[in-house]
């Protein structure tokens, strides 16, 4: 589905990514983890077509990505909603920019908002939304183009613990229903294990892909799985790969 082929990235003298390659299979949920500053976001921006790699390439359905495309949605750590547009108009934005007729994009936005439990907040400005609602609206905006691949850059990093748990479950549910391919950057080991089929581990800068951890936990994932011995062992294994001091 999405294939990263020996991607290198340097900014001046700074070597950020070294020969990174992996592939996302259709319908897979993959998490990308690594020490802070290791180039996770850079890799995501390259995959989204926002940044041209110094060397290597990214293929979507066999075609090299040279610019952002609607089949690949991206969700940032911050909701990045436009403060002067209503929640609905924010969700409509990708369609409006593509020139989709008003009635059609309105219907699509209403659908997305309803699915995310934001129907009552359609006409409210983003300043009136809570952090979780704002990020859900941003998710709606990423989904309204119906992308096959969703790239997420620490999407829940700015949320409080309770909202975060709720959003994780909601995202897993959405993923199970729609069969999208998801690549999610996170710095939380437990989040990576809880969400992913597979966890890709990047080393410290200059980053290369060190290992891939398969997560054999059953689906659907449930919150209480976090307390199982199997889950704990996976997290410990992941921590060992990263070399982070165990808490």
């Amino acid at each position, binding site marked *: 589905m999405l294939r990263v082929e020996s991607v290198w990235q340097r900014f001046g003298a700074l070597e950020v990514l070294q020969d990174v390659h992996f592939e996302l299979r259709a319908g897979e949920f993959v998490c990308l983890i690594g020490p802070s500053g290791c180039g996770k976001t850079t890799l995501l921006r390259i995959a989204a077509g*926002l940044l041209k790699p110094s060397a290597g390439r990214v293929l979507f359905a066999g075609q090299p990505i040279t610019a952002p495309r609607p089949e690949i949605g991206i969700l940032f750590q911050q909701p990045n909603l436009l*403060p002067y547009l209503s929640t609905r108009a924010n969700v409509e934005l990708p369609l409006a*920019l*593509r020139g989709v007729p008003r009635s059609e994009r309105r219907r699509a936005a209403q659908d997305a908002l309803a699915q995310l439990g934001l129907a*009552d907040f359609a006409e*409210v400005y983003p300043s*009136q939304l809570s952090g979780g609602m704002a990020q859900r609206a941003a998710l709606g905006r990423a989904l309204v183009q119906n992308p096959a691949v969703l790239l997420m850059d620490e999407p829940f990093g700015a949320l409080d613990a309770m909202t975060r748990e709720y959003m994780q*479950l909601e995202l897993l549910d959405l993923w199970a229903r729609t069969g999208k391919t998801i690549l999610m950057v996170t710095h939380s080991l437990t989040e990576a294990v809880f969400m992913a089929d597979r966890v890709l581990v990047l080393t410290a800068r200059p980053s290369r892909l060190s290992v891939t951890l398969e997560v054999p936990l059953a689906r659907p994932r449930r919150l209480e799985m976090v307390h199982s011995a199997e889950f704990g062992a996976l997290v410990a294994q992941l921590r060992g790969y990263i070399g982070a001091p165990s808490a």
Partner: protein
Amino acid sequence: MAQTISPSTQTISPPRLSAPRLSPLRRLWARLPAIAVAVGLLALWHIQTRDSASLAFVIATPQAVWQAFGQLINNGTLPNHLATTLLEVTLGLLMGVPSALVLGYLIARNRFAERTFAPYVIGFQAVPLIAIAPILITRLGGPGVASVSVVAALIVFFPMLMATLVGIRGVPSELRELFRALNASPWQTFYRLELPSAAPSLFGGLRVSVTLAVVGTVVGEGYGATAGLGFMIFSSRFMYNPAGVMVGVFTLTALALLLYEIVARLERRALRWRAPQP
């Protein structure tokens, strides 16, 4: 755990967007401090002019000004001068604001434009307008509506340019990245992102600009103009008619307040998305 509850949507209902309207009495009450200041100033003025006959050529009493007001309105002098000034202010704004918007945008977005123009724009701000106004006016066909409007436009230009710079540079880079991720064209980025994001700053610049445009016409009319409120003030002073001066000053003040209020209302309409102020 089979069922999860949403911590964020359960109990919250959508907030109302506008502040409740105040009753007329409450609004009057809110205005009371400003009215008190006016009364105080009027009293001070009255005391200052009450028994100083020697100052009669410099300061007029409130009553004299009031009478002069009636006279100048009735004989058509004030409406004529006001019309001229209004025209000059309008033309000055129409020339100064758009050119500041265009140049400000260029400087904000283009390194080459910044290197080329920024030093002159900033340096020009240090040139006293009084020094170059005579040159401008003789080069622009002598005193008259055209040259005075240009002086007003020059005064308006700098604050509007700065407001544009601040506004356009203040567009968050994450939002620019979002627009790139959505493949927005430069024009879409301008009118769907840059313009609305910069709007609060642009309106700030516009508030300053409309009042400065009024000042600009007075400066411009100081060099041989034969009409306008500035001319009326200068000629009244020349004829030792302090009441005429004060009538001109009050009319200018009222004009500036009116223009400011118009901008403020436009702003409130355009920026309704900002959280209602408590």
